[in-house]
Every structure is written in C-alpha cells, then in structure tokens.
C-alpha cells in the first residue's frame, strides 16, 4: 500500500463502475437522456439568447464507461428492463448512503464513507459515453500517440513518486482539461452556467475552472497563446450553444475521466453543443478532433441535469494537496528505510 489515497480513489471508482455493470430492478423508469419534451420552448434571456443558466451536473451517468464493453457491440442504450434493474440498484445505494454508521461487522477500508460520493439520481440510458462511432468506442490511436507517456493517476497503473511531475495534471491540481472537467466522476460534477450579453461563463466545480466564452465571432487568439483549457469561442445554432475550443497545450490531459488517458496534442479541436431539452435537462455533446492522436474524430454525449439543492462548492485542490506531500514524502521514507536495511546486511 504505497499510495493509500490514490488506491482508495481508484478502488472507489472501480467499485462504482462495477456496480454500474451489475445490479438490479423496478419499472416505468424515468431515465437520463430522455428525448426533448414535446412542445418544450427554450426560455430566453432578456436580451434574446436561449437561456441555459443554472447549475447542472453530469451525476446521472456516473459509472457509465467512456468506452462501451466490446460484447455490447452497437447496442447504444439499455433496454427498459435493464434500466428498471439499475433503478433498483440506485435505490439500494441511496439507502446504504443514508446510513450514518457502518454496520459493526462491515469491512472498513481507508476509503471515504459511501455518502461522500455523488450518485446518479436516475439510471443513465446509455451503455457508453462515446456515442459515435456506432460501436461506442474511441477510435484507434495513431502509432506515435500509442507510445506517448501517460502520467500517474491518469491511466498508468504503475505508480512511482520521484517527483510531482510523475503525477497527472489532475492529481497536481492543475487542470483536468475541457472534457475531463465535465465527464461524470465520483464527485464535483457541477457546471454553473452564467450568461451575460455577449458571453457565456461555465464555472466547473472540480479544480475551480471558469471558462469565459465570447459570442461575438471574434477570431481565436494567436496560436502562440496556448493553455490547458484552450481558447473558447461560442455561437448559437438555434437554441443550441456551440463552443469551439482550440489553442490547447501539447501533451497535457487526455480525453478520459478526470483528464486521464493518452494526452492530446496542440492540434486538438473540441466542438461542444449544449441544448436544453426540458427545464431540468441540458443535453451535452462534444466532438473530439485531434488528427495527431486519433485516426478519426469521435463524439461523446450525455445529459446534464439540474437538481434541487445541488450547487458548486469551492474546490481548493492545490491549497490542500496533502496527497502530493504524502506520496512524495512516503516514497522518500521508503527509500531511506530500504537504504538502512541494505546497510545492515
């Protein structure tokens, strides 16, 4: 147990995704990613833009894998029966979360209590977050991308802690990138949208990102100005907010959960679409195009919902990054102990 905190987080995520695949029943299920409500009219801001403001969360698709399990083939959605099973599973999870104390005979690990995590409130219809290509899986990577270094905590299962630079940009509390900041994970899935005339701001809870998106058709910044979150430009396509983001730094975050996976390049272009389909649902879609990493563009989509009482909290990540202190100082302590032991031999 070299890295208890990281391992606890990994275990928790694994548990959640396992549970997402197993578990059980109910009927007449209300699902996430429902089709647009009939006759729904998108509200407008006083200055006439579609109004998509509010605090939205991707919680409902927590546990839905980015890549569809290969055995499901082109099956994009669960059946009504399977969804009913999932609803029952969510109900049991909610009951377990409401327990203030663990049962006396329970196995207790170093992980946080179960109520610490955010949960889906209704089952996610989708079998994967990737919706295109039809097999629901990210396209093949180019040979040069396959050999790209993936930092710790972002998909590499062989932790070492020589330096902070061995860890992912998320573990370092720098950024999870654009897709990593909205894909559903165990907590901190909030997206607060505030609109002004000429701008949309999207405030993301985890790593306290604030994306400022101008709507005035100005060109992108110079390609010499690059960043983790890129340079965003927006416009309205009917009632849909379309955001094009370029000018990313090369080789930082990947497209996976928490910005994990193979890092994308400076050629990355993201095209996001935000469409309000009923008062409490905002359908999210992003087309990922990185010609230096993937053989073809692909689409990820899932619903965001507004939930009573759900709000963003300040995620002071770097300010309280004890995991980094502990991982580095733990590794140095082990080295000292090993050196002492070697001397005694």
């Amino acid at each position, binding site marked *: 147990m070299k890295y208890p905190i990281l391992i606890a987080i990994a275990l928790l995520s694994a548990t959640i995704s396992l549970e997402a695949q197993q578990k059980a029943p109910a009927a007449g299920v209300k699902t996430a990613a429902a089709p647009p409500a009939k006759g729904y009219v998108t509200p407008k*801001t*006083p*200055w006439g833009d579609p109004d998509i*403001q509010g605090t939205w969360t991707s919680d409902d698709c927590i546990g839905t894998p980015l890549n569809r399990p290969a055995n499901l083939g082109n099956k994009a959605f669960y059946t009504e029966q399977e969804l009913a099973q999932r609803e029952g599973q969510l109900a049991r999870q909610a009951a377990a979360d409401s327990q203030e104390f663990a049962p006396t005979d329970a196995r207790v690990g170093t992980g946080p209590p179960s109520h610490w995590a955010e949960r889906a409130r209704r089952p996610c219809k989708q079998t994967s977050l990737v919706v295109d290509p039809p097999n629901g899986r990210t396209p093949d990577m180019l040979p040069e991308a396959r050999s790209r270094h993936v930092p710790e905590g972002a998909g590499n299962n062989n932790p070492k802690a*020589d*330096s*902070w*630079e061995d860890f992912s940009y998320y573990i*370092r*509390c*720098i*950024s999870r990138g654009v897709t990593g900041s909205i894909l559903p994970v165990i907590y901190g899935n909030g997206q*607060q949208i*505030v*609109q*002004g*005339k*000429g*701008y*949309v*701001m999207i*405030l993301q809870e985890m*790593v*306290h*990102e*604030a994306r*400022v998106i*101008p709507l005035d058709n*100005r060109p992108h*910044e110079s390609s010499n*100005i690059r*960043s*983790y*979150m890129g340079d965003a430009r927006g416009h309205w396509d009917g009632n849909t907010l379309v955001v094009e983001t370029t000018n990313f730094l090369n080789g930082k975050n990947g497209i996976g959960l928490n910005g994990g996976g193979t890092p994308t390049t400076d050629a990355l272009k993201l095209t996001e679409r935000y469409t309000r389909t009923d008062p409490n649902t905002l359908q999210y879609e992003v087309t990922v195009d990185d010609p230096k990493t993937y053989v073809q563009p692909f689409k990820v989509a899932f619903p965001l919902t507004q939930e009573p009482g759900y709000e*963003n*909290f*300040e995620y*002071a990540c*770097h*300010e309280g990054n004890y995991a*980094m*202190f502990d991982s*580095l*100082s733990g*590794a*140095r302590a082990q*080295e000292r102990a090993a050196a002492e032991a070697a001397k005694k031999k």
Partner: protein
Amino acid sequence: MLNRWKASIFLTAILFILIGAVPGGAQARGAPATSNIPRMLDGKPNFTGLWQALGTADWDIRDHSAAPGPFYQLGATGAMPAGQGIVDGGEIPYTQAAADKQKENYRDRLKLDPEVKCYMPGIPRANYMPFPFQIVQSQRDIAFAYEYATSNRVVNMGKFKEGAVDTWMGTSNGKWEGDTLVVDVSSLNGNSWFDRAGNFQTENTHIVERFTLADADHINYEATIDDKTIYTRPWKISTVLYRRKEKGAQLNEFKCVEFSEELIYGDLKKK
C-alpha cells in the same frame, strides 16, 4: 406633527437627490455615477467586461516607497515600485498584536504569502492583482473569473445565502443600492492576505464591497473591512478598476500551480 415630520423627511430626501449625496457617506469615491454607463434592459448598471486595477496595491495596500526585491539576481525587475496606497486615511487600524504579526508576515513573506504558492487570492486581493478579471452579468447572478490561479466567484443576487463552509474566496451576496452593486463577503477562511506586504485577515473578517460605474470604462471600487479580532475599527480601501480596451484583450490562463511546485515540494524530490 406627523405630517410635518413626513414633509421634512421628504424635503431632506429631495435635497440629497439634488446634491447627489447619500446619507452616511456611503457614496463611492470619485465622480457620482452618470447616466452614460452601460445598462441591462431592466436599467441596472451592466458590469460585463474585462477589468483590471492599475497601481501598486498588489505590493502594499499602504503608501510605500520603492524597495529592493529579495533576489538580487532579478535586478530592477524584482524591485518593488513606489506607490500610493488604497487604504483610506493611509493606515490599517491593527491591534498591537496584529501589527506585530503583519511585520512577521512581511519578514517571512516568501514562505507565508499565499500568492507565492499559487493559492487562491481571496477577496479583496483578487480585484487589484496585476491580472485582469472578467465579469459576466446575467439578469440574476453576477460571475467573476479572475485570471490569477483561475480563481472565481459567483455573486448571488437572490435571497441572502449563508456560506455552507469557510472558503478562500468567501461567499458573496449582492444587492443594488441605486446604481451601486453592494457585495457582502463572508465565510472567508482567513488564510488570505491583502498584498505582498503581509497585511492579513482572519476567518472573522467581514467585507462589504461597492462597485459603482463612474462612466462606461471605470468602476469606482470600495471595500469596507471589519474584524474586531485584529482591527480596532472598520477600515476602507478605494481604488479604480479600468476596462481593458486593447484590441483582442481577453482573459488568459494563469494556472500557476506548476510554477510553485519546485518551491513547495522541491525538498521531497528524489535526489
């Protein structure tokens, strides 16, 4: 009798309106708000835009002479420029113990200043650091995105909400007093400083900010700071926020965590 009272209150109110003053000296410093300012459709002033303070308050919010920086290698680029402070009356009314603590803070500033470690700047410091910030004002809430450390806050314009927990950026509740946006900031965690000179606050600090558009491109900014545990009375800062008007000016990204890691974790690196 009652009618005479009413009449005199009414006349006093008229008089104040005519001379453009507000009782209690709450008016923002500088020119009174004019009609020539951007407004929302409901008539409220519209603060949407990219703003930045000038001056040297980020070094020291009090009046200060030029001084050498801590590293001779940086030469003139590392030195502190002289500047007028933004504290009304010049001095911060610290208690004796707090005044001593500020001096210690200054002496150990490279170790203690949250800015050095890329921690969130808190309020009011975020507003006059040498970085721009973007305001996006909706018909309801008002969002602030600061370039430094990607810090941000949303000013709640609805029903007053207590902060659920203490935070670096605090909990901001706003209301309108005429054309002035008044923001009550509470639930601060007390770890923030006001500047690089060690001027500090605590978790008991309560701040009331006032934003008033002097014209389309200038905000008169004031903040009243109250904390009986370290100040002998409430005190006030006043400065001006300027609209960034350069062609293509926009908020950029200053994720400074990676510029602070060697400093914070350097001694834990594998040798």
